[in-house]
């Protein structure tokens, strides 16, 4: 019997709004507005700090509460208009890590009015076979919004123009990294536990070095932190059918718990807590393959005098491209695992051995 995972209409609409919102690193205001609109009925106040992080605390009612930070980044990879070549043609830079091979032939949205534009390519008829073996470098690509007057200026942001879709067990859309994590945080805020003080940080500038999380952690000074991100599922078949030993995570196998990535060795007590909670609640989980990459935990865990941290990610295929694929079940199970884990945190939690 295969369990089917559902999202309510409201949940799907929120995910769609978050995915479609435009928010490259340093310009996350639109995402922040979507979040605030959604959580306002559940919070008494909030703070937008100097970098644009949205900080929200929901205090519990129990005695001796630990301060538990949860963080998810609002920003996405995208583009910044760099120079006006005239006639609606603009040179651009990428913001965050984007493979240049993902750019030709895509449509984009530019500036706060979301003006449509395209990144074209030379017609195939005018190319030679050897030319088609070479990738088109960024300096040869342009964003084209068509001739005529336009308000676009260097410095304006642009993102891929991608429709959000629900397909069978999957979600397809742009910026699932990390708007899925943002949606998880929203669900945690709406159903905050009484045993802790929940400190939620919707962070900025993760894609360019987790800069928002660093200052958010300083402001909160939490006792411990959970980072909710999206991690690549490189679970495709290998071209020669060799075993895929670098899958990182698999779609559909549950939230991915981090033991180690390029920026953080997770706190063993928190890894243990997540695993035990998942087992107790019969929530599927997987361990992300240790390796490179990083999350906001990279700057949080070494902030101030040190903050015990762990990351939990929703696996996603094709991160940092026009459209990614994630499973509804992984999203639902991530929400379930984090809710259950937060509820199980006792004041003496940090007194246990680190082994």
């Amino acid at each position: 019997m295969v369990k089917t995972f559902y999202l309510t209409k409201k949940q799907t609409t929120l995910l769609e709004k978050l995915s479609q919102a435009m928010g490259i690193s340093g310009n996350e205001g639109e995402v922040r507005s979507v979040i605030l609109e959604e959580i306002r009925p559940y919070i008494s106040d909030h703070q937008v700090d100097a970098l644009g992080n949205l900080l929200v605390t929901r205090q519990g009612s129990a005695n001796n509460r630990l301060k538990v930070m949860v963080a998810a980044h609002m920003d996405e990879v995208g583009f910044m208009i760099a120079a006006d070549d005239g006639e609606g043609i603009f040179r651009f830079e990428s913001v965050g890590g984007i493979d240049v091979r993902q750019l030709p032939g895509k449509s984009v949205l530019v500036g706060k009015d979301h003006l449509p534009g395209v990144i074209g390519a030379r017609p195939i008829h005018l190319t030679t076979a050897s030319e088609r073996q070479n990738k088109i470098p960024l300096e040869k690509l342009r964003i084209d919004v068509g001739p005529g007057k336009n308000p676009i200026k260097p410095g304006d942001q642009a993102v891929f123009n991608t429709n959000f879709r629900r397909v069978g067990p999957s979600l397809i859309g742009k910026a699932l990294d990390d708007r899925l994590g943002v949606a998880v945080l929203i669900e945690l805020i709406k159903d905050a536990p009484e045993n802790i003080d929940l400190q939620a940080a919707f962070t900025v500038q993760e894609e360019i070095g987790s800069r928002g999380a660093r200052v958010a952690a300083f402001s909160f000074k939490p006792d411990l932190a959970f980072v909710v991100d999206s991690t690549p599922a490189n679970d495709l078949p290998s071209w020669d059918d060799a075993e895929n030993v670098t899958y990182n995570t698999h779609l559909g196998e549950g939230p991915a718990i981090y033991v180690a990535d390029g920026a953080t060795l997770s706190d063993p007590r928190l890894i243990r807590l997540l695993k035990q909670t998942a087992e107790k609640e019969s929530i599927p989980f997987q361990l992300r393959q240790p390796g490179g990459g990083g999350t906001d935990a990279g700057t949080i865990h070494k902030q101030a005098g040190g903050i015990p941290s762990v990351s939990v990610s929703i696996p996603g295929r094709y991160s940092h491209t026009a459209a990614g694929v994630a499973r509804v079940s992984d999203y639902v199970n991530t929400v379930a695992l984090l809710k259950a884990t937060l509820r199980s945190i006792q004041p003496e939690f940090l007194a246990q051995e680190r082994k």
Partner: protein
Amino acid sequence: MVEIIPLLKQLLSASGVAGYETPVADILQNVWKPLVDEISVSKVGSLHGLKRGNSSEPRPSLMLATHMDAIGLIVKGIHKGFVRFTDVGGVDPRVLPGQQVWLHGSGPAADPGNPLPGLVVKPSAPLLPEELGDQVIPIENLFIDIGLAPGQVAKFIQVGDIVSFAQEPMEMNGETVAGHSIDNRAAVIALTMCLQEIQTRSHSWDIWATATVKEEQGYIGAYTSAFQLRPSLAVVIDTTWAKGPGSDDWNTFPVGKGPTLMWGPNIHPNLHKSIKELAEKLEIPHAIEITGQSTGTDAFATQIVAEGIPSMAIGIPIRYMHTPVEVVSLKDIQRTGRLLAEFIQTLTTDFMSKISLGS
């Protein structure tokens, strides 16, 4: 009254990959029906609309040919839940990773009216042949992910199923439209504008408005329709390469500065001359496009059908041809439609003798 932008958007939202033009033919049949006296579909699927002239029979006839098929992709196999594919009609694999597509599945569980959304994807480097490194990934190493569990995919998708681009048409800045299949739906619209224009004007020749099939795979519709209709003249309207980022070649033309009048061995010199002189007289901006060997349009076919048909080709410049984000100027479509309508007015019963190459 046919409005140009809504019709263009409707045609650009329809699939119509070469060999599977029915979705676009159905739309067009409805649009043309009130504009012509007779409408029919050829044995291979091309659409023929006849607008009768008012001279005595037997009347000479003009075939206006626009191909309605488009480039796309086709399924080659399913591997562990991922779809392998190749291209139909010439697609640079460099524009494919990250492209959203529709899969027109024919598997037992597929609903023919509801194509499945999919995504062209590039596996990560460790899953690809090492020598590819960070270079261009050939089409045979790309997949389409349709978001279903691996075991479900074969229920919907089979080898040979057609895949069309899902890029929605976008109006840009009020002057241009971007989308897939602008090659050659832009010309189909220009022809429709021409039909509309001649509704209130009399003409002595019969006019065959044709939307041909399988141009991208060898001008199949043009050969067969020209043979069936046996027109006195054929004027082909297709798209041509526009100047733009990455293509500033001598044989590219500015967007928004009018259509091109092609010149070369596929083209009847006197027919070219009469259309060129008309454009000059009407002050319709245009450029002369030199096509040294083949025009690469349906005129390559119409010229050598049966006893030979004097042919001409007109090009609407579009940027980024054969990508899902082609860009066309609305003005260029309108100008092309007007030039065709005005040309029809010049067709007198002795026109054929006027353009004769000699006796």
